[in-house]
């Protein structure tokens, strides 16, 4: 029974459930910052799913790039919107632990799951057998997918230029 409970499958379903619940909370949320918090939890849950599917490199990228960089971009944008007045009128009256309890519980479930995976030697062995190493991914990226990588770099550069152009203040003028 215990072996069944701690198999890779059931951990995957638990992480998927956390991802679905957190995503539902994002879509139905009213407070922007709370929705962002749940979005972080959703991305972390998907990262755990990636790890369980034998893609630790993708899981690390998900945490670093999605939850680390893109979500910080969201937070900075929310700061720039100057929603200060909106927050004071629409914020719930009771401030404290109750607001973040749901997200904390979901994140705690993910933490327990990761600890279980790392502690279980059998499961580690099973995962090691199915893993696709980052070396293979790197060889693929700079071999058959070289053109796609170049196009992605152009996409990032044009994204940078476009976001600078759209977000710069009007009064500064200038050619760009």
């Amino acid at each position, binding site marked *: 029974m215990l072996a069944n409970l701690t198999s890779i499958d059931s951990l995957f379903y638990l992480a998927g459930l956390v991802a679905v619940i957190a995503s539902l909370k994002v879509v139905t949320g009213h407070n922007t910052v709370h929705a962002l918090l749940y979005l972080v939890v959703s991305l972390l849950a998907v990262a755990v799913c990636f790890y369980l599917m034998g893609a630790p490199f993708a899981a690390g990228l998900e945490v670093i790039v999605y939850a680390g960089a893109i979500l910080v971009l969201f937070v900075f944008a929310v700061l720039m919107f100057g929603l200060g007045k909106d927050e004071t009128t629409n914020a719930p009256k009771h401030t404290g632990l109750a607001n973040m309890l749901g997200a904390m519980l979901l994140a705690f479930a993910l933490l327990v799951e990761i600890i279980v995976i790392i502690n279980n030697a059998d499961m580690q062995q099973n995962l090691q057998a199915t893993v696709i190493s980052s070396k293979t991914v790197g060889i693929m990226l700079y071999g058959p997918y070289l053109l796609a990588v170049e196009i992605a770099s152009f996409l990032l550069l044009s994204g940078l230029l476009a*976001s600078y152009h759209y977000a710069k203040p009007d009064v500064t003028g200038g050619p760009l």
Partner: protein
Amino acid sequence: MTTIPLFHVLILSSLLFAIGFVGVVARKNTLFILMSLEIMLNAVGVAFIGAGSVWQQADGQVMFILILTLAAAEVAVGLALLIRMQKKYHSLDIDLLNQMKG
């Protein structure tokens, strides 16, 4: 070959995609629409990684990295447009954008 069946991975992926799609269609706040777009891109990533792990090919992870770049560029441009919209209309309601200039 992982123990997780591809069918269940695809169910999770389509659930997340459906949640994100409902968010894009139903929400009025443009910031929430962007967040739902992130959820949708993420769901596609789950499908790619699942397929890649079932067939033991690295292509799934390569496609996921490309999706990651796409998401980063999309969020940068989208948030810049939102900052512009907030400056002009002092609101993020997408219904304010229902008129063209010409």
